[in-house]
C-alpha cells in the first residue's frame, strides 16, 4: 500500500474516493480492480492492519483498576461519543474521535459517532449484515412517504450476492420475503435457551421466525480466495479492537488489500476534503479541495470521477460546502433536499426474562453475534398495524449469569468461593431495531458564522425521532415481552430507555446508522442522486454511503451500502468506457 504522505500539490488520478470506511473501501477496491488509478483521501490517521490493533490481546487486568472503562477525566473529551455507553472503552476508544477536537452543533441531541482513521467505522461496526427486501424498496411508494426508491430489489440482488461472497457472511437462509436469503458461510450456533425461544415463538405466533444473526465473520473459507489475507473467526468477541486474524470484514482486512494488489491504489491520510470543485464548462466535477489535517494547508486533487464515501453527514457537508454560481446552495442541491431526511434506527427498547431449566448446560466460545427476529409487523393484511407504518426486528441472545451474580446474591466467604464454581441462571434479552421514516424536517446544515478547528463551517444537526418511531416503540417493548413470556420466560421485564440522560443517550444517531442526507430518486426536483448514485446534475460525482438511502428499512444498512457501491462503481467504469463522463 503506497501512502503518499507528502500529498503532492496537484495530482491527477482516474478516480478519487473520499473516505476509507465500509463504502469507501469498496469503491477503492472496485475502481482499482477495474483498472482506474484511484486515490483514497482519508481525513484521519493511517492505520496498519494487525500491527495497529494494539489492544487486541489485552485482558481487563492489563488496565488500571481492572477495567476497560475510561476515567471521568478522559471522558471530558468525549461528551457525545460516550453516550453509547461502550464507544469510549479503552479497548477501542482510539477508534472514536474526541468531540473536543472535532466539534459539531447539536440543535437537538444527536449522537454522531465518528472514527477518523484509515478504515473508519469499518473497524468498529456491528457486522450484522442483512439485505433490504423487495418490500423495503417499495415502501415509500406504497405508503406515499417521501420519494420512491429509483431501484428495486432485483436491481440489487446480484450486487448483494457479489459483496456477500467477497466479504464472507455467516448466516442461515430462511426463505423469508421480508429478509431475503443470501450467500452465507456456516451459521453460528444458538444456545439451548435461544433454541427454546425460537421454538416457543414459532409455536405461539404462527411460525414467526427466530434465526441466528447474519454477521460478516469468516466461519468457513471464502469461495473467492484461498490466499492468506483473512483468517477464520476465533470467537474472542473483541472485534471492535481490530481483529489480528482479519476474521471479520473491515476495509483493512477485506477491501483495501485487494485494491492495493492491483497496483492502482494510492492512499493519502490526514486529508480532509472540504469541497468538490465544479467545472461549469463541462457540467462535471473536476476534483476536490483538500485540507491537510496536520498543516492546514490546502491543495487540489483532480480526477475523472469522484466517489463520496465520507459517511452520510460528512459527505453531505462536503457537497453543501461546494458552492458555485451554478450550485449556490451546494453541489447537486437543486432539489433543496441535500442534508435533509436524516434517518437512523431507533433502539434501546425491548424486554428481558429469566429462563428455568438447562442448569446442566453451558456454551463455549464468545460468539460475536446474537439471534435475530426478522420483522413481523406490517408485512401483509394480517400483520397490519393501525397506528404506525413499517416495522422492526430484534437482536438479542441468552446467556448464563457469570461471576457478577455473587454480588447480588450477597455471597460471602466459603459460600462465595463455592458459588464461583457454577454459572448462574439463564437470562435472555431482545432489543428492537426500528425503522425510521424520512422526514424533511430532520436535517443538517452548515453554519458559516462558526468555523471548526480545520476552517470548515460547523455542521449543525437538527433531527429527532418523530411520532411514527415513538408509537412503534410501544409495540417493540410489548411484543418483545409477549414473545419471551410465550416461550417460557419468567419475570419478564420490558424496557424503553428513550428518556435516559434527559433523552440524550437514545437520541437520533444512537443506531450509528445515519442515512438519507442525499437521497436517491427519479426526479431531480425531489432527490439528489439518481438510480446509479450519481448526482443528478453532476454525473461524475457518485455518493454510495448512507447518504444515498431513500428509506431506512429496519435492517442494519452497511451491507446495502457495499452493494450500492459495487453497483455504482461498475456503472462509473462503464460510463467512462462509453465516454459519457
Amino acid at each position: 500500500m503506497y501512502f503518499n504522505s507528502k500529498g503532492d500539490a496537484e495530482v491527477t488520478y482516474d478516480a478519487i474516493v473520499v473516505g476509507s470506511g465500509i463504502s469507501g473501501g469498496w469503491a477503492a477496491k472496485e475502481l482499482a480492480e477495474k483498472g482506474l488509478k484511484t486515490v483514497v483521501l482519508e481525513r484521519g490517521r493511517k492505520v496498519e492492519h494487525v500491527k495497529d490493533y494494539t489492544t487486541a490481546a489485552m485482558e481487563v487486568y492489563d488496565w488500571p483498576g481492572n477495567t476497560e472503562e475510561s476515567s471521568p477525566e478522559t471522558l471530558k473529551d468525549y461528551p457525545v461519543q460516550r453516550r453509547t455507553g461502550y464507544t469510549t472503552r479503552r479497548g477501542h476508544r482510539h477508534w472514536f474521535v474526541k468531540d473536543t477536537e472535532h466539534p459539531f452543533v447539536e440543535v437537538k441531541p444527536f449522537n454522531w459517532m465518528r472514527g477518523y482513521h484509515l478504515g473508519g467505522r469499518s473497524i468498529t461496526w456491528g457486522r450484522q449484515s442483512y439485505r433490504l427486501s423487495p418490500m423495503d424498496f417499495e415502501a415509500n411508494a406504497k405508503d406515499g412517504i417521501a420519494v420512491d426508491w429509483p431501484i428495486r430489489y432485483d436491481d440489487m440482488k446480484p450486487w448483494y450476492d457479489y459483496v456477500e461472497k467477497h466479504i464472507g457472511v455467516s448466516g442461515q437462509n430462511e426463505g423469508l420475503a421480508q429478509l431475503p436469503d443470501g450467500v452465507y458461510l456456516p451459521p453460528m450456533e444458538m444456545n439451548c435457551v435461544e433454541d427454546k425461544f425460537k421454538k416457543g415463538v414459532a409455536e405461539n405466533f404462527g411460525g414467526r421466525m427466530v434465526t441466528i444473526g447474519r454477521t460478516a465473520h469468516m466461519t468457513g473459507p471464502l469461495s473467492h480466495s484461498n490466499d492468506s489475507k483473512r483468517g477464520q473467526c476465533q470467537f474472542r468477541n473483541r472485534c471492535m479492537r481490530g481483529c489480528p486474524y482479519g476474521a471479520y470484514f473491515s476495509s483493512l482486512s477485506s477491501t483495501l488489500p485487494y485494491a492495493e494488489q492491483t497496483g492502482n491504489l494510492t492512499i493519502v491520510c490526514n486529508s480532509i476534503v472540504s469541497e468538490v470543485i465544479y467545472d461549469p464548462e463541462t457540467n462535471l466535477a473536476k476534483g476536490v479541495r483538500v485540507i491537510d489535517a496536520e498543516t492546514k494547508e490546502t491543495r487540489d486533487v483532480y480526477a475523472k470521477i469522484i466517489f463520496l464515501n465520507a459517511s452520510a453527514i460528512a459527505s453531505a457537508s462536503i457537497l453543501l460546502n461546494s458552492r458555485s454560481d451554478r450550485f449556490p446552495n451546494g453541489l447537486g442541491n437543486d432539489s433543496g433536499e441535500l442534508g435533509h431526511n436524516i434517518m437512523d434506527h431507533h433502539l434501546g427498547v425491548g424486554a428481558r426474562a429469566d429462563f428455568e431449566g438447562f442448569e446442566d448446560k453451558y456454551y463455549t466460545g464468545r460468539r460475536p453475534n446474537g439471534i435475530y427476529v426478522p420483522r413481523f409487523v406490517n408485512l401483509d393484511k394480517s400483520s397490519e398495524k393501525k397506528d404506525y407504518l413499517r416495522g422492526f426486528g430484534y437482536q438479542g441472545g441468552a446467556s448464563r449469569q457469570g461471576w457478577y451474580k455473587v454480588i447480588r446474591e450477597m455471597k460471602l466467604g466459603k459460600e462465595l468461593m463455592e458459588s464461583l464454581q457454577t454459572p448462574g441462571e439463564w437470562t435472555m434479552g431482545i432489543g428492537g431495531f426500528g425503522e425510521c421514516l424520512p422526514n424533511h424536517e430532520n436535517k443538517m446544515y452548515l453554519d458559516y458564522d462558526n468555523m471548526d478547528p480545520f476552517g470548515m463551517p460547523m455542521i449543525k444537526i437538527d433531527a429527532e425521532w418523530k411520532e411514527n418511531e415513538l408509537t412503534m416503540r410501544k409495540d417493540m417493548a410489548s411484543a418483545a415481552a409477549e414473545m419471551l413470556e410465550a416461550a417460557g420466560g419468567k419475570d419478564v421485564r420490558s424496557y424503553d430507555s428513550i428518556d435516559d440522560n434527559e433523552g440524550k443517550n437514545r437520541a437520533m444517531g444512537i443506531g450509528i446508522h445515519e442515512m438519507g442526507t442525499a437521497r436517491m430518486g427519479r426526479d431531480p426536483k425531489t432527490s439528489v442522486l439518481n438510480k446509479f448514485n450519481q448526482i443528478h446534475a453532476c454525473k461524475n460525482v457518485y455518493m454510495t454511503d448512507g447518504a444515498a438511502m431513500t428509506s431506512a428499512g429496519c435492517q442494519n444498512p452497511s451491507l446495502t451500502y457495499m452493494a450500492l457501491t459495487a453497483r455504482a462503481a461498475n456503472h462509473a467504469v462503464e460510463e467512462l468506457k462509453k465516454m459519457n463522463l
Partner: protein
Amino acid sequence: MKMNRREVLKTAGLVLGYTITAGSAAAILGGCSADPTPNWTPETLKDDQVKTLEKIANAIVPGTDQLPGAKDVNIAKFMDERLSIYATEEEKTAFQEGYSSFVENHKVTGMSDQEILDLVKSEIENGSDFMKAVHEQSIIGFCTSERGMKEVLVFKPIPSEQKGCVPLEEVGGIWAI
C-alpha cells in the same frame, strides 16, 4: 499474561499461514501494562485504610486450600486505583465519610474472618452503602484479577470454536470472559 499474547500470535500465524512480523508482534505485545507489583504506593488510601480493606476483602473472598483469594491479588491496589482514577469527587467523599463512620464504631484488627463476615452482613442489612461497596469491590477486584480469572474462573482467551449447547461439566466453571 505473556502466555496469552504468545498464544494469540501463534494462532494468528497458524490461521493466516504467515509468520507474524517483528513489527506486528511488537504491537500486539506492546499494549501490555506492568504486572501488579507487591511494592506499590497507594494514591488515595491511607495505610490504615489499606489494612482494614484488605482484612475485610480477605474475609469476603477467602480462597481455599487450592484456590487463591483476595489476599493473593493485591486487592487494596485495585481499590485504590478504582478510587483514585475512576471515582468522582462525590464518590471519593462518600467513601471517606463511610470509612470514617465505619472505623469509629468497629475495629476489624483482631477480628476473626467469621466475625468480619457477620459484621459485613449486618452492616449491609442495616443499609451501609460503604460496606455494600466494599463487598462489591472485593468481588469485582478478585474476579477481574489475573489469578482470579485464570485460577478460579475458566479462562480461554482464544476459544477458537463456538458451541451453542454443551454439558456444564465440559466447561467446569464460570467463564472468566
